[in-house]
């Protein structure tokens, strides 16, 4: 009996005739919106560095790198409903893996980037297995503890220069393309390529059956158990995937600034990543990128004016949370809806 149902499943799931079922309009509409927004975003991200000054190219690179970290955080916060205060540690693990491998062990940067991604994935999977059995405040505290532990290791480690960190870390060698990544614009496009690939993978994950399970866990974990899901492996894997984006971000971060120090992995950094998610909009796929842009640009703008930029940043944060439901992405969506309705009305009037 059980086997026949399994077979029926395989049949109904694998046949081509059942693909693109016309009834799943929500998913199709969502996919169309995603493609349109991605295309527009990509044009902006390709054109912007060609028209702005060198300084802003550097800021744009930072936005993309934070965008990676924060999109990873959002897989947990926005999709799965888990608040982690330790994600900066995984950015640190990615950063230090690349730094140690390239400047101490003389491995090529591309190989160490792969190692950074793998290391952050594996370590995060281990941390995930230990932490996702807890919930709410407990989960927040256990991730905080793990994060601080890795931070402490980085601070105490003599090989990596302790609190001072490491300098003179090389960027990726793009000579086979006839390019020099030491030029900021070239490096920007390399980061953009990494960003696009990582976001394409993340997108596949969030719209997959697995991704839908994560959303179910966010909405009601108790019901997920009742309908037959074992929530634990899903949460552990989500934790690992989320941290892997942080690891990649860390690997790019050391190349961007040519240096790394333990400050990158403090819990304040983890907290700021959460702020970026919420400012940008946790329910939107590209919300975190908007949050990262807002964070990098206002931080730069405010720190020109005052030392106490965090105070103003906090105030802005309160304003965004109080008045923009769904963050900047939510605000943009509302605006787009109004404009569409407005233009539809105008056409109707004519």
């Amino acid at each position, binding site marked *: 009996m059980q086997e026949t149902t399994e077979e029926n499943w395989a049949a109904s799931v694998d046949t081509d005739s059942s693909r693109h079922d016309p009834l799943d309009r929500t998913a199709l509409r969502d996919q169309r919106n995603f493609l349109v927004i991605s295309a527009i975003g990509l044009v902006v991200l390709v054109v912007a560095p060609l028209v702005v000054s060198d300084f802003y190219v550097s800021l744009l690179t930072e936005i993309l790198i934070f965008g990676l970290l924060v999109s990873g955080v959002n897989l947990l916060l926005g999709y799965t409903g888990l608040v982690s205060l330790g994600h900066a540690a995984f950015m640190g693990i990615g950063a230090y893996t690349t730094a140690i491998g390239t400047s101490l062990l003389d491995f090529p940067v591309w190989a160490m980037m792969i190692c950074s991604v793998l290391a952050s994935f594996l370590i995060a999977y281990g941390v995930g297995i230990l932490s996702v059995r807890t919930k709410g405040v407990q989960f927040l505290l256990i991730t905080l503890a793990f994060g601080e532990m890795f931070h402490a290791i980085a601070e105490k480690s003599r090989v990596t220069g302790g609190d001072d960190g490491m300098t003179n870390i090389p960027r990726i060698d793009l000579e086979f393309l006839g390019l020099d990544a030491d030029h900021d614009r070239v490096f920007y496009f390399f980061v953009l390529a990494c960003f696009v690939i990582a976001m394409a993978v993340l997108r596949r994950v969030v719209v997959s*059956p697995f991704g839908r399970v994560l959303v179910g866990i966010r*909405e009601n974990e108790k*019901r997920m*158990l009742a309908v037959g899901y074992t929530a634990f492996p899903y949460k552990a894997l989500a934790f690992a995937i989320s941290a892997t984006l942080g690891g990649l971000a860390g690997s790019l971060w050391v190349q961007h600034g040519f240096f790394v120090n333990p400050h990158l992995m403090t819990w304040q950094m983890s907290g700021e990543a959460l702020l970026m998610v919420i400012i940008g909009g946790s329910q939107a796929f590209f919300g975190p990128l908007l949050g990262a842009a807002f964070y990098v640009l206002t931080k730069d703008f405010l720190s020109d004016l005052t030392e106490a930029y965090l105070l103003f940043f906090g105030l802005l944060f309160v304003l965004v949370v109080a008045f923009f439901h769904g963050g900047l992405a939510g605000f943009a969506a509302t605006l787009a809806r109004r404009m569409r309705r407005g233009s539809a009305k105008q056409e109707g009037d004519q």
Partner: protein
Amino acid sequence: MSQLRVSNISKSFGALRVIDTFDLNLSAGDRHAVIGPNGAGKTTLFNMISGWIPPDTGTIEIEGLDVTGHPPEKITQSGLARSFQKNTLFDGLTVAESLRLAVQAHSPVRFNFFQPARRFGGLQQRAHEIARQMELEDVFENEVRTLSYGQKRQLEVGLALACEPKILLLDEPAAGTSPAERATLVRLLTTLPDNMTLLLVEHDMDVVFGVCTQITVLNYGRVVASGTPEEVRADPEVRAAYLGESAGHGEA
């Protein structure tokens, strides 16, 4: 062969014995109700059978397989699905998304993390069938939080039904519903497949007598009476303890 066999289970919370050596034996297609006043231990009984709390003593078997002490998700995978007395739904998702999740839990695609879920049309089709069966077709694409209370109760049953269970446990499906909503529920419950075993906890006697053919009456964790609705209604102990002396269609 018995499909669900509950033998000799007991549960105490501190000094309070909530369920005292309870037995139940259901065959495929049975329609069985457990009734009793508030605090009789009905929900505790349900929580034990569906794996949410372990019994102190006794065993629970599904189709001859001992599932005593298994966690809820394992029990559901063994073919027993339940609904909740208090709505336990995915408020931020649509009816379609909710039902699809429940269907997906029992399909091999549930671990697929790299193909768009919308390609698995089978999930969507099955979700739509359940929605039609539970008369939720008109609100299929609506968010759960926008549904009426009665529709939410229907979705409660639908989510359990989407697990393709052999045994369906419904915890007060009619709790808090209006008479009209209750009538809809009774109609929906009477259309369940004949071979599906139904175990119902319910306060509303119209629902119990409208759906079930066997009734167990529970009071202070003990079985007071058991039998057909007629037998139970005629039982003097039940009339005293539960239905009230003037009972015909008595209210709890």
